[in-house]
């Protein structure tokens, strides 16, 4: 029996746009940075976790949600999971969730959208990381 495992961290957008205090410019993954890693969806036992790191430029109280969205080959989009980060009188907060990717198929893509649900006065950035966990056992 052989065991094999791989953990990969994938950042779709290395330099996410700053969201200002109006919350009006909530960010979406730029089209060029959408993940179209077609082969990995055919992998058995793969798990995916979305990790959000919210960074404020001043102490504040804000709530930001990040949706991870699947787009299929027909262009139909589905929200797979939502991660919510709440900061109360602070400058930084994190949250993470596992994402059900069992329905992903070969030509599907993933993108992220960020929305502010509780506004503050600070400017902030959301750094999102996709963590792929791939354990395997060959008997």
């Amino acid at each position: 029996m052989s065991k094999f495992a791989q953990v990969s961290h994938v950042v779709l957008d290395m330099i996410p746009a700053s969201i200002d205090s109006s919350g009006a410019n909530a960010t979406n993954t730029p089209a060029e940075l959408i993940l179209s890693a077609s082969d990995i969806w055919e992998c058995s036992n793969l798990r995916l976790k979305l990790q959000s790191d919210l960074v404020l430029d001043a102490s504040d109280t804000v709530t930001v949600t990040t949706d991870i969205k699947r787009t299929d080959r027909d262009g139909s989009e589905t929200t797979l999971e939502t991660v919510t980060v709440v900061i109360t009188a602070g400058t930084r907060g994190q949250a993470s969730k596992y994402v059900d990717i069992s329905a992903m198929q070969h030509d599907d893509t993933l993108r992220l959208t960020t929305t502010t649900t509780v506004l503050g006065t600070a400017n902030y950035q959301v750094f999102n990381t996709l963590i792929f966990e791939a354990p395997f056992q060959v008997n």
Partner: protein
Amino acid sequence: MNIVTLSSIPFDPKPDATTAVNAIANDVYNTPEELRIDLGQITRLNYLDAEVVGSLIFDAAESACVGNIRITDGATDFHTEPFTTSSTTRLDFKTSKLNLKNVNGNTPLYIALDITTAATTAVTAELFAQLRIQSPLIVSD
């Protein structure tokens, strides 16, 4: 059994923000030597599915700037991605699939920024980029 790994490797997590793009020149920015990507044993795989994605961030909306982003080992350019911007502070890009078949595992890859038409104002740019590689393997009974 299908086994696939997806790797996302940044070239430079904190690129030089003082790179001027208002003069025509090659190699106005290169990945620092210590941060270049050595593919090592990965190059032994028969199948590699690789692309480079990234963002060019300007410190102000530039008037117009044209150039190339190259993925190179210093001797061979494995891909050249042309770009043209106009009055924007951000340009995102994704290359077509790269042919890394002839990359030497001991020769680090890096990105280079060339300017072929200079911005008419004194703006600077940061080049963020990462290499995404899928490595599929099928184990048959």
